[in-house]
């Protein structure tokens, strides 16, 4: 198998990571960045020739932020690719089919409970988001496929309906609550308002587990492209494969949403671009989407931070500005089939 796509996306990710860590209110040159990182390695003693404030900026603010954004982008793009394969629909995306809104509702519910002192720490939030995500994907699936009609229209309409419902409940919960939560409306638009390492530590196990399982489902997704009936006749345990895909994609989506809010279109654009560049084989598409999604969201986040500096835009605004026209372009491209 040709490894070039992996190298390209991997190098892109490295570049995006460095850019994200280097840029912000204070610029840290990549050379300094590397020295600072190296100084943290065990057994390396280095005389720091950088301002002391850099330590705090890099290790307490930039790196956790960069890590969280990269993890989120990876999770959204990989699960977007998987949902597209599962629904056999190029427009499936955690945002468009309402899974993100469902996860958001779950997350906010957990946050409200936390505020009332019935939950502690950040660890219940992704779990609640996961339950929300799985429930939504179930409802959308039942609505869209009830009569075995696999049309894009029903899928998207079901997604819109479920998504609006979940978002309305979320807004209600937010407006009713007091204090911190009320001010975090920006979270809904995908502003990574949480700082420090705690959200990274809380999100990582979910995203690793979700994406890790997802990466094993490439062949099953390939077989499912022939429809469930044929997939079964080809020897795939369809129910098991579908459950595993829904479980892992929803887990990854939920963890991403729980900590960075609802970010649209990354899960739509990235798998699409990968498919156009390197073909439809899901065994490659999923890992390449993972790497590409991390890079893309890092770059979008960089733009969101720099565009109106010192003010930061929620990154969801950038991805939606880029994603909505892309969505229309796909609609136009597939107009014969829809």
């Amino acid at each position, binding site marked *: 198998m040709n490894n070039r796509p992996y190298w390209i996306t991997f190098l892109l990710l490295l570049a995006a990571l460095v850019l994200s860590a280097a840029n912000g209110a204070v610029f840290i040159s990549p050379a300094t960045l590397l020295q600072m990182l190296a100084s943290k390695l065990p057994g390396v003693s280095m005389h720091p020739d950088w301002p002391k404030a850099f330590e705090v900026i890099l290790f307490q603010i930039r790196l956790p932020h960069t890590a969280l954004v990269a993890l989120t982008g990876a999770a959204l793009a990989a699960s977007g690719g998987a949902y597209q394969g599962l629904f*056999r629909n190029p427009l499936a995306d955690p945002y468009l089919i309402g899974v993100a809104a469902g996860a958001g509702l779950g997350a906010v519910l957990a946050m409200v409970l936390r505020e009332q002192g019935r939950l502690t720490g950040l660890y219940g939030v992704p779990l609640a988001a996961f339950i929300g995500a799985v429930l939504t994907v179930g409802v959308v699936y039942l609505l869209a496929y009830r009569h075995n009609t696999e049309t894009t229209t029903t899928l998207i309409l079901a997604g819109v309906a479920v998504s609006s419902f979940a978002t309305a409940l979320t807004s209600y919960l937010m407006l009713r609550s007091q204090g911190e939560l009320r001010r975090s409306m920006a979270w809904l638009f995908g502003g990574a308002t949480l700082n420090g390492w705690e959200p990274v530590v809380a999100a990582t196990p979910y995203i690793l587990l979700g994406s890790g399982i997802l990466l*094993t489902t*490439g*062949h*099953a997704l*390939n*077989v499912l*492209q*022939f*429809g469930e*009936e*044929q997939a*079964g*006749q*080809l*020897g*795939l*345990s*369809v129910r098991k494969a579908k459950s595993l895909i829904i479980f892992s994609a929803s887990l990854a989506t939920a963890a991403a949403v729980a900590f960075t809010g609802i970010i649209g279109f990354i899960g739509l654009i990235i798998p699409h671009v990968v*498919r156009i560049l390197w*073909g*439809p*084989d899901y*065994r490659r598409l999923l890992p390449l989407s993972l790497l590409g999604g991390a890079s893309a969201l890092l770059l979008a986040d960089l733009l969101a931070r720099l565009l109106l500096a010192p003010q930061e835009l929620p990154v969801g605004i950038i991805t939606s500005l880029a994603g909505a026209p892309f969505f229309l372009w796909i609609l136009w491209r597939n107009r014969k089939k829809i």
Partner: protein
Amino acid sequence: MTYPEKIVQPILEIKNLTVCYGERIALKNISLNILPGETLAVIGPNGAGKTTLVKSLSGVLHPKSGSAHIRGQDVYQISPTKRAKTLAVVPQARNLPESFSVWQTVLIGRTPYLGWLGQTDPRDIERTRWALSRTGMLDFAERRIGELSGGEQQRVLLARALAQDTPVLLLDEPTAHLDLRHQSLVLNLVRELALEQQLAVMMVLHDLNLVALFADRVALLVEGELRALGTPIEVITPSRLMEAYEVPLQVIPHPTNGTPFIFPGGQKLN
């Protein structure tokens, strides 16, 4: 004439198979066998249960009662993977993933032999290559499914079923969207493979003239019941067909090979 008993064991044995959709009985007490190398055509009017038969053998539907065995193995007691090693389905070429390559599509026929991750070994590659070359599609291996004609797509699906390496082959209207040339191309190939590989082939066909030419035996289904089972000459008779299809028609011997030749016998409207 008397035949020596049980010299050839049937590959596929269906006994008293009954399938229901809720309350409605779709197949009633169907029993039939298919021998190695034999091609059985299933005919009957729309809604007679032909596709239901294919679906209930391939595990999509479960029967209410009765059994189906392939080389002695109960089709309903084995896992999907194991079933896919004994029975392959050639569906109609519709709704295929257009961006898949021909090679990738045929390789997917190896699914029951592959691991969960889809890793292949040299045997999988060899069998895929053989299936492609046997169906005349090797030169198309790098092409995308969406670029192929209907007849070529149908041959790719046949190749995929051959890659599955099964003793039983089920075909669901394999000639539905094909022109005359590709109809006989595909059916000739199926018959050749049945004889050469000693496969048991069951195919659902609408065109009775193709049935007469390419089937060893014919099963006539009407309203879920097996009304007739025998050679084309035995089954394709005017009285049986008129009763089943409820249209006037004529059957005459084919001018070159004497098999039944059917044409509708109604009056022409002006």
